C-alpha cells in the first residue's frame, strides 16, 4: 500500500465534505475490493474515508412493502436478517452466496454496487427487483445505475446511501460460481411482479443485463420449460480461463431455469 490519510466521519455530511476536499480521496466500504487493490498498489488514493461509523448508512427497513437497505449494510446482515428472509427471501439467499464468510462479514451492499464488478451478485437483484439507488444527491433507478464494466451512473463525489428493493410475488437467484474466486460466472435473478417478469443476468456480460426474450416467455408461462430453446447470444459476453462466452451463454439459460424452478 502507498500512504494515505485515514478518516472516520460520523455523519454523511462530513463524509461528503471530506470527499469534496481531494480529487484523490476514496470512500471505504467493507474494503473487500478496495483494500486488495491498495495492497497490490494498483490505486493510490490520498485519503480513505471510512463509511463504517455513519449511522445513516446502516440498517434494513421495510418501506412501501419492499425493503430499504442502508449502503453500509454488510452482506452477512442481509443474509441473516429475519426481515429480509420474510419480505424478499431471494435477496437473503443471494447475500448468503457471496464469496465466503469473511467476505460476507465485511463487504457491504453499497461497496458492491458502486464497484460494479461484472461478476458481482447484487447488481442482478438491483435490476430484477426494480430497485432505486439513493445517494446523498438524488435517486437513481436501478435500471439506469449500472452503465458498464466497473462503471455506474454515479458522479464524482457522490455517495450511495441506501437501496430500496420492491417486493416481488416470487423470486429466486441462481448462481454458477467461479470455482476459484466464487464470484458469479453467471448469476440469474428472476422476479415476478403480477404479470411482469424480470430476468437480470450478472457475470455473463460486461455489466448486468436483462434477458428480455426470457422475460416475455416467462410472463406467459412462469415455468422452467418456458425457457426451452431460449438462449442469449454469446457475442460480447465475457470470456476467461474459467468460462468461454459460449459456455456463459449456455449457463444463462440453465441458471434461469433453475431460478424459475426455485421461485416456484
Amino acid at each position, binding site marked *: 500500500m502507498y500512504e494515505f490519510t485515514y478518516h472516520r466521519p460520523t455523519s454523511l455530511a462530513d463524509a461528503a465534505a471530506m470527499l469534496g476536499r481531494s480529487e484523490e480521496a476514496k470512500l471505504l466500504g467493507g474494503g473487500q475490493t478496495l483494500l486488495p487493490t491498495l495492497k497490490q498498489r494498483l490505486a493510490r488514493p490520498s485519503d480513505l474515508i471510512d463509511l463504517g461509523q455513519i449511522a445513516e448508512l446502516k440498517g434494513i427497513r421495510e418501506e412501501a412493502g419492499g425493503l430499504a437497505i442502508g449502503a453500509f449494510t454488510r452482506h452477512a446482515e442481509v443474509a441473516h436478517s429475519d426481515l429480509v428472509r420474510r419480505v424478499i427471501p431471494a435477496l437473503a439467499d443471494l447475500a448468503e452466496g457471496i464469496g465466503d464468510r469473511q467476505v460476507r462479514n465485511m463487504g457491504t451492499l453499497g461497496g458492491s454496487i458502486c464497484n460494479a464488478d461484472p461478476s458481482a451478485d447484487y447488481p442482478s437483484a438491483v435490476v430484477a427487483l426494480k430497485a432505486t439507488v439513493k445517494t446523498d444527491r438524488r435517486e437513481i433507478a436501478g435500471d439506469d445505475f449500472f452503465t458498464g464494466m466497473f462503471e455506474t451512473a454515479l458522479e464524482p463525489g457522490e455517495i450511495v446511501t441506501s437501496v430500496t428493493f420492491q417486493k416481488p410475488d416470487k423470486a429466486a437467484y441462481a448462481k454458477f460460481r467461479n470455482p476459484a474466486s466464487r464470484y458469479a460466472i453467471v448469476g440469474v435473478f428472476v422476479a415476478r411482479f403480477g404479470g411482469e417478469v424480470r430476468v437480470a443476468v450478472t457475470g455473463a456480460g460486461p455489466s448486468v443485463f436483462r434477458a428480455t426474450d426470457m422475460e416475455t416467455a416467462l410472463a406467459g408461462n412462469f415455468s422452467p420449460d418456458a425457457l426451452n430453446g431460449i438462449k442469449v447470444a454469446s457475442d460480447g459476453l465475457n470470456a476467461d480461463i*474459467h468460462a468461454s462466452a459460449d*459456455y456463459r451463454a449456455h449457463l444463462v439459460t440453465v441458471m434461469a431455469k433453475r431460478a424459475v424452478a426455485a421461485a416456484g
Partner: protein
Amino acid sequence: MANPNGIGASVRRREDARFLTGRGTYTDDISRPNQTHAVFVRSPYAHARIRGIDAGEAMTAPGVVAVLTGADMEADKVGSLPCGWQIHSKDGSPMKEPPHFPIARDRARYVGDAVAVVIAETREQARDAAELVMVDYEELPAAVTSVKALDGTAPLVHDDVAGNLCFDWHLGDAAAVDAAFAQAAHVAKLDLVNQRLIPNAMEPRAAVGEYDRATGEHTLTTTSQNPHVIRLLMGAFVLGIPEHKLRVVAPDVGGGFGSKIFHYGEEAVVTWAARKVGRPVKWTAERSESFLTDAHGRDHVSHAELALDKDGNFLALRVATIANMGAYLSTFAPSIPTYLYATLLAGQYKTPAIYAEVKAVFTNTAPVDAYRGAGRPEACYLIERLVEVAAAETGIDKAELRRRNFVPASAMPYQTPVALQYDTGDFAKNLDIALPMVDYAGFAARKAESARRGKLRGIGFATYIEACGIAPSNVAGALGARAGLYESAEVRFHPTGSVTVFTGSHSHGQGHETTFAQLVAERFGVPIENVEIVHGDTSKIPFGMGTYGSRSLAVGGSAIVKAMDKVERKAKKIAAHMLEAAETDIEVKDGRFVVAGTDKALSIGDIALQAYVPHNFPLDELEPGLDEQAFYDPKNFTYPNGCHVCEVEIDPETGVVEVVNFAAVDDFGRVINPLIVEGQVHGGLVQGIGQALYENCVYDEESGQLITGSYMDYCMPRADDVPSFAVQYHEDQPCTHNPLGVKGCGEAGTIGASAAVMNAVVHALSDLGVTHMDMPATPERVWQVIQRHSHAQAAE
C-alpha cells in the same frame, strides 16, 4: 500394560495447541534488533536481456539501506545455486546445468526472476524504493510450453543449451518392449497431460539473514524442510561459508509439500546481504511472489502404450514423457521425472517389459521440482488411466483386469523391470477391502438412480505403489544423487528421566512432535509429556537430511530407534551393575529393566539418574551419561501402496463434477498414530482431488505471463468440495527392512486420488463415447467434452 501413548495410539497432535492458538513461531514471527527488510525487484517479462540497472533514485528514497544486484553478487564471487541430482542422457552425456544465480545477471528467464534487491528500514519503504529501481530490459521472445520449447524453432532459454533440451534419458529394455508389442493381441494408447501445479503452502517462504561480526558466524532462519541441506548447498556452493560458521534454523514451518525442500536464491541473498549491510535482513514473500517463484510441480506431457495378450495380461509398457524443468534447475528437479517417476511405471502390475524415455526441457517459466508425490503421482496417473482405457477397450471389468495383473503377494520380494525391488505388498487384498467399501456391485443401481435425476455417474479406481524413503545412499549416489539419504537422531536422557530427542527430520505439518515421542514412550515407558522432540536447527541437531518423500518415520524414525537401541544397551549395563545381576539376565519389559525371573527392576529414570550421578556406576567399564546418537541409512526404499476408489456425479447441464464417494485403502506398513495417518491421507486426497478437478497453473503461451497468479484464478480445493472419506489401512504387510516396519503415508493420498477421480469422470462420460480428458476436469471443460460428444453422437 501397554503405554497409552505408545505405538498404535491415536494420540492427539501435541503441537496443535501451539499452532491453533497462534503461538507457533514461524520465520516471519522472528524479528531481530536493528533488522532491515528486503524486497526483490522481479522481472515482469518471461524473457529479457538486462541492459542496465539504475538504482540511483531508489538509493535516495527514504529508509533505503542498500540496493544490490547480480553484479554485486558477482563481484563478491557468489556462486550459482547448485543442483542436487545429476542425470545422464541416453548417450552418456551429463545433463545441461546452466548457472542459476540468486539474482539474475544479464538475463531474466521467467516472470518473477529476481533482478535486484532493495534493503530498507521497513518493508513498505523497501517496496516503495523497489518501484524506483529502473531496469533497462530488452524483451526477448519466450519459450513457454515444454512441447513448443522442444520444437527446434523456439527461443533458447539458455544460449548454450541447444534445443532447450536439458537431458534425454531412458530406462528399461527397449528391445524387450518392442518384441512384446509385436506379440500383442491388443494395444491401448493414450496421450495425456499432467498439468503444472502451484504448491500453495499456507505459510509463504521467508528468510532472515544475520551476521555476527564478533564471531564471524552467519545465521539463516528460513522456511525449509531440511536446514542441513540448505547449510551444505548454500555454504559450500553459493556463499563459501564453512559449516562451523553457518547456522541454519527452520523454526515452525507452515506447510511445504516439497516446495520448501529446495535452496532458493532469496536465502542466499539475505545471508550475504546481512554481512554486507552489517544488519539482519528479513524477507517474507507476498502471496503473489509465492505464486510466481515457489518451485512448481508436475508439468508432464506423455504418450503411453500398453500391450496386452488376448486374456488381458499386460505384456509391455512404453512411455515417452516431456518434463518441463522451468527456467533453471531447481535443487532436485532432474530426479523427479526420472528416478521418482519412470521407476514407478510398473505400478502394482507384473508387466514384464517396460521402456520409458524422458526429455527434460527448459522453458521461460518458474522452476519445477518435487511437489507432494513428486513423480509418483505422474506415474500412477499415467498407468491407471491407461489400464482403465485398456479395460474399456477389451471389455474386461476394470477391477478384474487389475486383479489379473497384480504382482501377487507370494511373488514378494519382487524385482520390477524398472530398477526397484518391492519388499512387501498384497495388492489384491487392498482391492478386496475397497470393493465393499464403495459397494462396487451396487454401482449400476446407483447409476440408474442418478440418471433419473438427469445426472451422469461414474466410478474409477486407482491402485498405486510409491517408493519412499529414497535409499540407500550409495545406490542413490550411483543414480546421480549428490547427497546422502540417511537420517540422524540423538536420544538424550536427562538426569531426572525426561528425554530430548534431536531429529534430522523436519516437521512442517506432519506431527513429528507427537509420533516420534510415541516411539520413545513405548520403548522406555516414559510419559509422553516427558519427551521433547527438537528439529530444524543445525546448531542443535546432528547432520540430517530433513523431510520429503514420506521419509520421516521410515528413515528418521528408524534413526531414533537405532539411538534408542544404543541407550537400551547402555542402560542394561548400568541396570546390571545397580541390581548386581549379570547383563544377560536383564530384560526390558514395558520399559522397565528387570532381572529375569525376579521382581527386581529399575525404571529408565532410575538408570538415567545413576548415569549422571554415577556414585553406584561401573565407571571403569562405561562412560557416565545416557545420550546416544545414530545415523540410519535405509537398505531399500519403502513401498506404501493402496487402492483408491472414487465415485462422481456429473451435472451434464453445467459440467460440474461432484465427488460423491471416495474410499482409500492403504498399506503403510505398521501405523504408529492412526489419527495422524488418517489426517495425512485426508490432506493428500484433497490435494489429489484438487489436481483432478480444480488446480491448474496457466501461463500465457506467448508472453509467459502467469495468468493464474492469485486465488481469484488458481482454484484450490475447499472443504465443501470433498465428501467424507472412507479410509482404511491394514498392517499385515510391514516393511521388511526397517526396524519399525513402517512405509510412510505423507504422499499416498495425492498419488492415488487424481487418477481415481479422473477414471471416475471418464467413466461417467463413457456412454457418450468419451475415452479420455485431461485434468483438471473443470465445469467448462467437462461441458465442452459433453457438447463435442453429444454432437458427434447426434451426427452418427
